[in-house]
């Protein structure tokens, strides 16, 4: 009796451990199961992916796709753990900020050869094709869309303030936002980004001011190899930008991150907002402002009339440790072209990767038209790549955000900030060599 019990207990333990550790693999009938892991998860997007995957499975009856959706906050860490263990991932979401470290660690598969001669490339915008390749000419992911800034503005408020069109330059933005700003009436000019990711808007304004001499392959460098922060134009750029905080933004925007900015614009209190296209959906749902009260305008230019579009991106890649690479690449191709890609960018509020989007009613009208305008005028809205793939990118963002807050709190001058940032990148690049 006791022996039986002991055996049973041991057996149970063994089973639990064994089931916990075994990976799901293919069935006996030649069906292949792909594990696909997403990173920027949200419920609607997961549903959308499920639909697209269902279409893929219908076209490929021998392939089953198992979509894994960890919560966004921990998704990249989960993915890292899975990649490190070398099991359980075939297709995965790779971001411009994760591709660097993950490829260095040998976790990603270079799809270059598999995608040679693929007709999908022809249908893609130039941005997409160039973003699909890293500096060494390898293809670790195919972008599914882009996150890029445009200016959300209140048509009624600027009209009341006496302007007949939205600002085109940073100086004009400062002028219009200051004119609208009236904190006593709880009306604010500009939704200033002071908290998480505050650095991104500072680099955007600096980029606009140095657009004439920027290095498109590394948007933190000018063509002579020094940092954009050391350029004389950068000084004007940050001064204009921080004046926007002093003259036209709520005092507490030192602690404004994404949610406060979007709330400020969509609750009708703030006239200007610089944000990604996904905000379009949020503003459309606003009870406080109607469709006629707002619109979008292209990214603001510097004094030269040009600006840079630092597009952030992510896409689908294949894990190096995966056993079914051919099938995995097939899925990546499926998601990256045609109707699947268009549906994904539309429903997920992304700047599209497909050329055909320029003729699509969805993108040519309303707030989306701005993105098409920017894509169609690459001489004004320069396509540049920020060094988001470097190993120290998160460290940089954290440091830069704190520095921006120091300036806002009066603990650092804009000049010191530029000097700090110049020193930071110069040192990092020197070490890299």
């Amino acid at each position, binding site marked *: 009796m006791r022996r039986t019990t002991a055996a049973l207990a041991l057996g149970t333990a063994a089973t*639990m451990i064994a089931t916990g550790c075994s990976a799901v693999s293919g069935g006996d009938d030649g069906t292949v199961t792909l594990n696909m892991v997403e990173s920027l998860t949200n419920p609607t997007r997961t549903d959308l992916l499920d639909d697209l995957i269902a279409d893929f499975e219908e076209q490929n009856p021998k392939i089953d796709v198992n979509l894994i959706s960890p919560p966004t906050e921990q998704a990249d860490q989960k993915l890292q753990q899975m990649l490190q263990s070398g099991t359980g991932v075939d297709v995965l979401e790779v971001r411009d900020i994760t591709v660097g470290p993950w490829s260095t660690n040998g976790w990603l598969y270079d799809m270059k050869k598999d995608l040679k001669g693929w007709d999908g490339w022809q249908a893609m915008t130039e941005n997409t094709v160039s973003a699909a390749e890293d500096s060494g000419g390898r293809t670790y992911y195919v972008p599914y869309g882009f996150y890029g800034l445009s200016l959300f503005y209140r048509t009624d408020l600027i009209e009341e303030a006496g302007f007949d069109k939205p600002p085109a330059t940073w100086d004009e933005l400062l002028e219009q936002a200051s004119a609208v700003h009236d904190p006593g009436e709880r009306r604010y000019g500009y939704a200033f980004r002071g908290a998480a990711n505050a650095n991104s808007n500072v680099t955007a304004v600096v980029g606009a001011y140095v657009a004439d001499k920027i290095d498109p392959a590394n948007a933190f460098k000018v063509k002579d190899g020094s940092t954009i922060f050391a350029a004389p134009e950068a000084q004007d750029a940050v001064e204009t930008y921080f004046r926007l905080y002093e003259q036209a933004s*709520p005092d507490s925007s030192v602690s404004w991150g994404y949610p406060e900015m979007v709330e400020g614009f969509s609750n009708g209190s703030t006239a200007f907002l610089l944000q990604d296209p996904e905000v379009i959906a949020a503003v459309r749902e606003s009870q406080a402002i109607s469709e006629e009260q707002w619109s979008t305008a292209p990214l603001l230019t510097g004094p030269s009339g040009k600006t840079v579009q630092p597009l952030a991106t992510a896409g689908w890649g294949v894990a190096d440790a995966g056993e079914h690479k051919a099938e995995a690449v097939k899925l990546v191709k499926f998601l990256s072209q045609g109707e699947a890609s268009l549906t994904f960018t539309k429903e997920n509020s992304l700047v599209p990767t497909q050329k055909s989007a320029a003729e699509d009613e969805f993108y040519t009208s309303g707030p989306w038209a701005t993105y098409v305008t920017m894509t169609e005028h690459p001489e004004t809205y320069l396509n540049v790549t920020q060094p988001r793939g470097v190993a120290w990118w998160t460290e940089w963002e954290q440091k830069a955000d704190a520095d921006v807050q120091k300036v806002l709190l009066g*603990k650092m001058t804009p000049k010191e900030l530029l000097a700090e940032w110049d020193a930071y990148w110069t040192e990092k690049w020197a070490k890299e060599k």
Partner: protein
Amino acid sequence: MPAASPTKQPHEPRTRRPFRTGGGGRPAHRGAPRRGRPVFTTRRGLTIAAFMAPAALFVAVFTYYPMIAGSQMAFRNWKLSDLTDKSFVGLQNFRDVFADPAWGTVLSNTAVWVVASIVPQLVIGFALALWLRRRFRFRGLYQALIFFPWAISGFLIGILFRWMFNSEFGVVNDLLQRAGIIDEPVTWLADPDTAMAAVIVANVWYGVTFFAIMILAALQSVPDELYEAAALDGAGKVRTLFQITIPYIRTTLALTVLLRIIWIFNFPDLIFGMTGGGPNNETHIVTTWMIQITQQGDYGRASAIGLLIVASLLVFAVFFLLATREKSEKKSAKKGERS
């Protein structure tokens, strides 16, 4: 299983064993305490081991292994950005932690965070418990309402309070302005000092509950006779509180305070949701700082901080327990002398 013991009789006391007892054939008295200890035969030992194995294995695999693996990371160059070089670096990670200019702020913030949170939590929690102990209409409902915050995730509370303390759209400024206490909106989360105050207010709101629960449970164990006797002796409310209630529940109080100190120390969720450690990294406590470094991918340095936290909490817990035990033992020794 029951069928296996045919000799078992319905009203046999427990001493009659599932286990063979050491007392040999000594007759068991009804209601007598269990005599002797179970003998550990190899077979029984194995059975016990087998039953414990699954749990032990899980604890080993999911608790101890990560802990040990994590600790050795602290002595290595363990950066997610490049795992091809995980060489041993000795105490370098610890030196980096101490050399970080933010470390001083982080430490003093942690002290402020713990002390300024625990004192109001204890006082308000105690008061609530005293109040909830009395019988009144809808007491159950009030109890449920007061205990409710404990069921909410810290991160969520952080986000809720982030909106409440929002200077332009938040309810806190609105109320203060309507009440005429302030003229201009306070930029709560934008100023490092008020931001720290705001996160502490949120934490007090959250933690009061736990004290109320624990103290209420302890209060219910204080015999009414003591209060009756005190009343007969003419003791007032304050005197009863300090000479009967508090001494009687001292152990619970000490343990609750200890637990809460450790938990508050290890409670980054709220700060993360509310300020993210900002502005200018001035509301970081040790644990939020550790998370920030994890996000940079520097697991080596983050583990070093983790080890420092474990070590300091261990030392603290030992001292705290010794200090509080000594007091109560002295007390009971005194009582002994008197009687």
